[in-house]
């Protein structure tokens, strides 16, 4: 299930919370390092995303996403799962970084 206008709507959520104009938000922008997202922003983004797209995601999940594209892909994947579609390939963007993966990188 394709969510209409997903990229624009996700960027608008980020604009509303972070105060950055949507046309200055690129898909590969790093949420923490470049857009300045903190833990409170993650909670607010999770709530706004849930309300906007009717998908259930936690702030812990949002906090594990790295880029704007990750949010878009993740929302798309959740919407698909809720609609009963098979999950897409999880090796690319949109996969939340899992603790095990983080540990693996660190190791």
């Amino acid at each position: 299930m394709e969510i209409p206008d997903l990229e624009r709507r996700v960027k608008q959520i980020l604009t509303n919370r972070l105060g950055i104009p949507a046309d200055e938000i690129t898909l590969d922008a790093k949420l923490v390092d470049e857009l300045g997202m903190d833990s409170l922003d993650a909670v607010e983004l999770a709530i706004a995303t849930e309300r906007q797209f009717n998908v259930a995601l936690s702030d812990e999940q949002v906090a594990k996403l790295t880029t704007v594209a990750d949010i878009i892909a993740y929302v798309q994947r959740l919407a698909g799962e809720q609609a009963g579609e098979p999950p897409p390939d999880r090796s690319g963007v949109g996969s939340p970084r899992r603790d095990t993966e983080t540990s693996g990188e660190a190791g």
Partner: protein
Amino acid sequence: MTRRVVITGLGAVTPVGIGVKSFWHALRDGVPGIGEITLFDASAHPCRIAAEVRGFEPRDFMSPKAAVTRGRFSLFGVAAARMAYEDAGLASLGRRSRVAVCFGNSAIAISEVQNGIEQFSRHGTTTVSPSIALEAASHAVTGHISADLSLKGQTMTLATACSTGIDVVQWAFQQIRSGLVDGVLAGASETPLSSYSQATFSALGVLSRWPGPPAQALRPFDAMSDGLVLGEGAGAFVVEELQHARARGAHTYAEVLGFGSASEGINLRTVDPTGAALQSAARLALRMARLDASAIDHVNAHGNGLPDYDRAETAAYRSVFGRHAYNVPVSSIKPVTGQSLAAAGALQVVAACFTLQEQFVPPTLNHDLPHPECDLDYVPNRGRTARVSRLLVAAHAMGGTHSALILGLPTEN
């Protein structure tokens, strides 16, 4: 040696301009600040007017993220505080831990809270914004000012309703006089305009139902007055020890000479018709300043257009000043600012500083037909030049608190 206390920086966010110069020019020229409410749908309310701040761009004063996440009262407060901070040249200070922040407000982030409660009622706990827990609190504005300006001394938040803007000067004065700090970035901000608060103030019976043009609705000391009109805004000032200011070469707007505060002790709404509490506050201020009442050249009055408040305030001045009361120009700036609760007193202090600097008393707009019991010189509708060496600023909180502040022209020695 007694530490003298002066005001060295000013800031203002008002319905008639952003910044102290545009605010003062509007006061001087008698520009009214009240109009139709645009911040919410007021069509069902008996009072559909207010003094709203327009043309305010928070990004001029803080980061883009702060501009979209903070409560409106914090936006105004931070902006006014930054103006005062820059005006006083505080950025050049080395010992920033010797500067405290004391800010006040009365209605917190009432509009944001109302929106949050409406969301909560519709969607339940899962969509509750966590930010409101931080941003709605009365001390949020104080904390944001401290953080944005890296002022790491004590922070204090006061809430004495309409007296707050004067009481923050009192707190600053005491801290500086006692040697605990060298300066205080003080002020008050207020954004009480929401459909819920408008309804509550209306139910209380204090809002004007003036049928004519909104700009004429708030009528201090006038026989046709029927109530107040809410407003929003912020006023800020740097209060500091005189030698501390001189060492930096800072411009001095005024010296803080004395203050007093007293309470009705009756209930939250009633005012004694003789203005007994204001009399006490003004006499305390005069005693602290070691001045006779005849030394006061001007009063920047509370004058909020509530008939019983205006009459009691006038009675208090007659009692405190005696025959001199009829020689003292008494101005109310409420038709310009609206009744912006805590911020109102702070904006009176800003206006009083300009009165001393410019030797000009602002007009009381909409004072056309004096109430029979209001028989003083209220500077009706046109401001004028006047010799003002010392003046009294007065505020009366719904809740019973009256505060009075005496400011003087700074002297060389």
